[in-house]
């Protein structure tokens, strides 16, 4: 339930000793405004309680003043409980779907997600025998598990858990990586938009890649998954380790990756 969209009301005692409410905050679009009086149908909520109006009507009083007639309300606590239950359901659904795709038991997946990010990436990688990228701190973590060269599952673990299948490449800051193949991060030459275009071109060629950057202070990067013993992997590593002029390095990278300057919008 999106609480911020519902009028928030404080209950007080009315003139006739009955419980009424005063709107504290509201979305003005439906005519409810801060300061309006709320009359509850029976049973009214407890006194001195913050409640959210779920079903209500804006009406005119005999004196011409507008007031709110509330037919259904929930206390703050009830709403929290509802949300929690819903998140649990969503989490379970997400985990069930993900575990099916990854072909691992839900419990295993849940245990993995409870680990710290480094462990989570490694354990998930070993369990699924897939390439896993991760970033996170504390309870919050994001995981990207590659399914094919162009598809991955993106799992966001935070106040709630959700997962979805995404098309590669995506913008992902790889802090942790596990792969039975080799993972090479090119972060020493290209601009953010070039990284994005390179990643796109690589995915088109059947090579999984993600990119990152564009923010102030962020290092622009393309993370590429390749067989460790492949010639391409070795060459990319050698180029990365060579201290040559950036402009030339870019051309060398592109040549080795088999990507034209046009594809990444690098001018001559």
């Amino acid at each position, binding site marked *: 339930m999106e609480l911020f969209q519902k009028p928030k009301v404080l209950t007080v005692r009315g003139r006739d000793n009955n419980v009424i409410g005063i709107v504290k905050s509201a979305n003005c679009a439906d005519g409810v405004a801060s300061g309006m009086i709320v009359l509850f149908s029976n049973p009214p909520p407890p006194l001195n309680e913050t409640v959210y109006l779920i079903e209500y009507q804006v009406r005119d009083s005999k004196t011409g003043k507008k007031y709110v007639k509330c037919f259904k309300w929930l206390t703050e606590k009830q709403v929290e409980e509802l949300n929690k239950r819903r998140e649990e359901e969503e989490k379970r659904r997400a985990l069930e779907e993900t575990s099916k795709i990854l072909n691992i038991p839900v419990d295993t997946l849940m245990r993995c997600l409870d680990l710290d990010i480094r462990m989570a990436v490694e354990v998930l990688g070993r369990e699924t025998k897939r390439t896993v990228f991760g970033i996170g701190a504390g309870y919050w973590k994001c995981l990207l598990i590659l399914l094919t060269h162009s598809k991955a599952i993106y799992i966001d673990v935070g106040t709630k858990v959700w997962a979805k299948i995404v098309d590669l490449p995506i913008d992902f800051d790889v802090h942790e990586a596990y792969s039975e193949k080799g993972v090479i991060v090119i972060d020493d030459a290209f601009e953010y938009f070039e990284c994005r275009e390179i990643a796109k071109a690589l995915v088109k060629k059947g090579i999984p890649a993600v990119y990152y950057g564009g923010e102030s202070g962020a290092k622009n990067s393309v993370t590429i998954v390749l067989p460790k013993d492949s*010639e*391409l992997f070795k*060459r990319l590593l*050698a*180029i990365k380790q*060579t*201290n*040559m*002029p950036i*402009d*030339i*390095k870019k*051309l*060398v990278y592109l*040549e*080795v990756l*088999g990507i034209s300057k046009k594809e990444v919008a690098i001018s001559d």
Partner: protein
Amino acid sequence: MNMASILGSISFPGREEEAKVLVLSLISRQHCILFGPPGTAKSLLISTLAKQFNVPYFEYQLNKYTLPEELFGVPNIKLLREQGVYQLITTGKLPEARLAFLDEIFKGSSAILNTLLTILNERKFFDGMQMRECPLWTCLGASNEVPSEPELQAFYDRFLFRVWSEYLPPERWEELLNAYWITHQPTYQKNLQSFDFKVVEEAHNKLWSVNVFTVKKELLEIFAKLRDQKIEISDRRKGRCLIAIAANAILNGRDSASPEDLLTLKYVIPTIKDEVNVVEQVIIDVAGSMLKVRQQLRELIPQIQGLVSELERTQSFEEALKVAEKLKPLYNKFTDLKLTAGDLEEVKTVENLINEFSNLLVKKVRV
């Protein structure tokens, strides 16, 4: 054949500067005057250059008794008597010359100098009843001293280039003797290499396409500094400085000006000999850092060329990358120099070399 080879043909010991300025005056189609005490080879230098071209050449030494007809021709009496038309017989005289050398030029009478002023300035000559076009390309003058009379200043200003010659220092006397013996042989001038004047015309045609504004900032700074030093330059001469700069660029086979062209201004800006050193110093102060940058850029060229050759010889991907690594410090140096180098042509040369290197490297790493 180009102007540089014409310059190379006039080899007089210690007179390289004078020879260069004479050639610049030809490229720019401007007039030039050489100052100096008697016996500094002014006349020999000028006549040697002029006689190498197969064009009408007029040479004369002026004095206060020189009559206008000695320069411009005598009246055609027959024509006057028979048809009543006053016209000069200009054959072999200054009005028909393409190149002219007037020695002791300021010693001419006011009648001569007034007529000369129009010829030099407008390349026109008033022949009795009508104005005639003169084919004069360049007038080369010589004088022992700068005129001090105010009435001669306008005439003096028509000479864009001015050079002050000195007697040669002792270390060049031996060279001088050797050269004297060769250049004064009766057959010397007959055996001179001859040049087609088209070479000069072609060089001049390129003059206005030279990108002179590559040194505009420095030129303005030179003007300002000279004004601080109480050396005033007329507006006309300020503009004509660009002509001298462009001519020097052409002489050096360039289509854009570079800081070294600014040094040409020491033959354009000074009006008296005492100003030459001041002007030169100001030019060096302003253009010096640029010249240093240019020198450093020139030093980079063979180093990068060396790396291109080294890269060509590599046999493997790893070897090629090692050579690429060697380029990094040179590339960084070039990047730094480029910030101050502006449009120096060496920048283009280095850039082309770096492009050559990167294209070759890309070929080498191709799988």
